[in-house]
């Protein structure tokens, strides 16, 4: 469980704020979508949970513990992270990328090997075939599968995802969204996923937090957001996928 209470964040000593009074809770096993335009504060929010940034004020608790009481490196090793633009280590093989966190955690070699095979199987990349390849030898979709495997290797119960599927082509993206959703419910992972793609958020998230100018405008299930938008901006972005679907339908029927 993750709790954010009254988080403020300013990068310039309070002259402007990146986040203003943000509070929300993510329950165990829940996938929360954080959606908003660039500059809305969604990535900053994500980074404060594993202390890539620290809040200017307010409190963040992960499983009841204040993150500021924890050593940032140890905290990060126990939280899965899937990066925007994939962020694999180009000089590590697939296997080395997947076990990077395990290595930091001091796992035994044989344990790492076993876990590497398990996680790679989970994301559909058999270790015998892919383990020794380098990221540059993989397609974009395969690379992000490795990214997901790396995030899951240390069996975290919390995973943070920063626009994980943004760089992929639409077909691969849909495939991976589906597969990840499946893995998430199977492992009962608590996930916060930053995205700017409303369709992705609607299809994957249990609840969605809509952010604008450093504030959470509304947080709720996809159904709630669609049926009871409490803000023009929320209404606008929630309806976007629906409007596009309507246009598509018209196109199909007119031809």
């Amino acid at each position, binding site marked *: 469980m993750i709790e954010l209470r009254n988080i403020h964040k300013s990068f310039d000593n309070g002259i402007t704020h990146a986040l203003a009074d943000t509070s929300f809770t993510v329950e165990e096993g829940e996938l929360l979508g954080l959606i908003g335009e660039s500059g809305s504060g969604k990535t900053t929010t994500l980074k404060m949970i594993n202390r*890539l940034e620290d809040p200017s004020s307010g409190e963040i608790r992960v499983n009841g513990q204040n993150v500021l009481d924890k050593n940032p490196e140890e*905290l990060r*090793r*126990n939280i899965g992270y899937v990066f925007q*633009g994939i962020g694999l*280590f180009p*000089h590590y093989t697939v296997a080395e990328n997947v076990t990077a966190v395990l290595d*930091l955690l001091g796992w035994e070699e044989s344990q790492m090997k076993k876990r590497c095979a398990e996680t790679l199987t989970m994301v559909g990349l058999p270790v015998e075939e892919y383990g020794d390849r380098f990221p540059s030898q993989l397609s974009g979709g395969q690379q992000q599968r490795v990214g997901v495997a790396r995030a899951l290797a240390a069996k975290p119960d919390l995973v943070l995802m920063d626009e994980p599927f943004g760089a992929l082509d639409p077909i691969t993206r849909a495939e991976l969204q589906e597969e990840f959703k499946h893995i998430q419910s199977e492992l009962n992972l608590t996930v916060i996923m930053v995205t700017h793609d409303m369709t992705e958020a609607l299809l994957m998230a249990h609840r969605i937090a809509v952010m604008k100018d450093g504030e959470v405008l509304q947080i709720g299930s996809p159904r709630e957001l669609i049926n009871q938008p409490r803000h023009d901006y929320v209404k606008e972005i929630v309806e976007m996928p629906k409007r596009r679907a309507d246009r598509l339908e018209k196109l199909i029927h007119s031809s």
Partner: protein
Amino acid sequence: MNENLREQLILLPEYFQGHLTLTLIALSLGVVISIPLGVWAAQSSAVKRPLLTAVSVIQTFPSVAILALVVALLGGQIGLVPAIIALVLYSMLPIVRNTVTGLETVADEVIEAASGIGMSSTQILTKVRLPLALPVIISGIRTAAVWTVGLATLSTLVGATSFGNFIFTGLQTSNLISVTVGSIAAAIMAVVLDSIIGGIQWLAENRNRQVPAKKYKQVKFTVIAMLGVGTAFSAYSLLPQTEVDFTIGGKGFTEQYIIAGLLSAELEAVGFSVDQRLGMGTEVVYTATSNDTVDVYLEYTGTVWANIMNNDNNPGHKAVLAGVTDFVEDEEGMINIGVLGFQNRYVLAMRKDRAAELGVTSIEDLIAIAEDLVAAGDLEFFGRPEWITLRDTYNIDFAEKLTFDPTLMYTAINERQVDLIAGYTSDGRISAYDLLLLEDPRNALLPYDSFLLASSAAVENQLFTETLEALVNEISDDEMRQANRIVDVDGGSVSDAVAYLQSVIN
């Protein structure tokens, strides 16, 4: 095989060993010092700019000047240490710069990923940034390696053995084969080192790229094989060198090479092992002898009188010799073993036809016409106190004063490009080109009696001292001129000239 070439090739193993030792030690130290500095600079912009400026400025210093400064800063120490320090200073720029560039060009998203999965900043540096920067860093080391091999040839000037010994000896004794052997040897070493490091760089670059596995393996095997051979050679070259009984020093001109050869031959004949450190400047070899690094070399009274004792008067041949002998023994703790008999003083010389045309036989005859004449001197002459004395004594100055390498200076007078030169009395080219030596009725030019200057430690060995004392007053001006002529004019080798001197002595 050509006798001259054979003589040069005999020297090859020793010079190779010296050159490789210099290069490997300097390059290793350069890497060990420069990479951490580069890492430091990449972390802190307060360090980066001053550091990069400093290493660039070092690079703009002429290399010979750096060598001279290092020798001076080390209190006159010669040999490996100052040479290596200078080479390390020179190797720093490409390595530091490439380390900084390599570290800075690692993609931000990779660094963010590393920190996001929980790497500490040290782990990010060692596990991510340095490995990713490696190909760029290696390419900096590669540049430094080639520079170092090239610059190591200059180490000869501060008494460290290198392929430069071939080059400088060859230049001074007009031995083109020697120059060629030295240059080719240095070029081969540079190419081999460059390709080994280039191979390593290729491996580092292609570790994570799509190159055929077979090709990768081939390159890897080749690099390992070359490294193996290289290591074997290095192990051989870094073996402790056998201690020699005496080290003979010398400056960088023909007569010095010949007399050093003669001293070596005489000492070896009575059973001593000797080593030669030739091609040094006066200051360097003088200081090295005073601190016992060099045991004996050929010096001239006028040089010590004017350059080291800073006298600007000329009390005459005997008084200068006595003054110099007292000075080196009382002030510097060295010993004058004795004069060899010939002088190598500066003398103004003209082509005989030109002198006849102008009606000149003595310096006094120049007074009226000097301002229309072009004079040439060696690299030092017009900066020396005796030129000042000459100028003021006769109140003359020339229309142009050109400086030349001595060999070129004689060519210039022979081809009438200059009217007169400041030549040397013992020079073989004076007789070869049939030059007229102008008289010096006012005794403005200092006497330069040649004498053997030895370290106080060396003269404690009685056999050493007796062997060298046997040479005292044995070589006349004519004989030395002839010996120099064998090398400078007739195309003979230094050993031919030594053989000639031995024949006239015994």
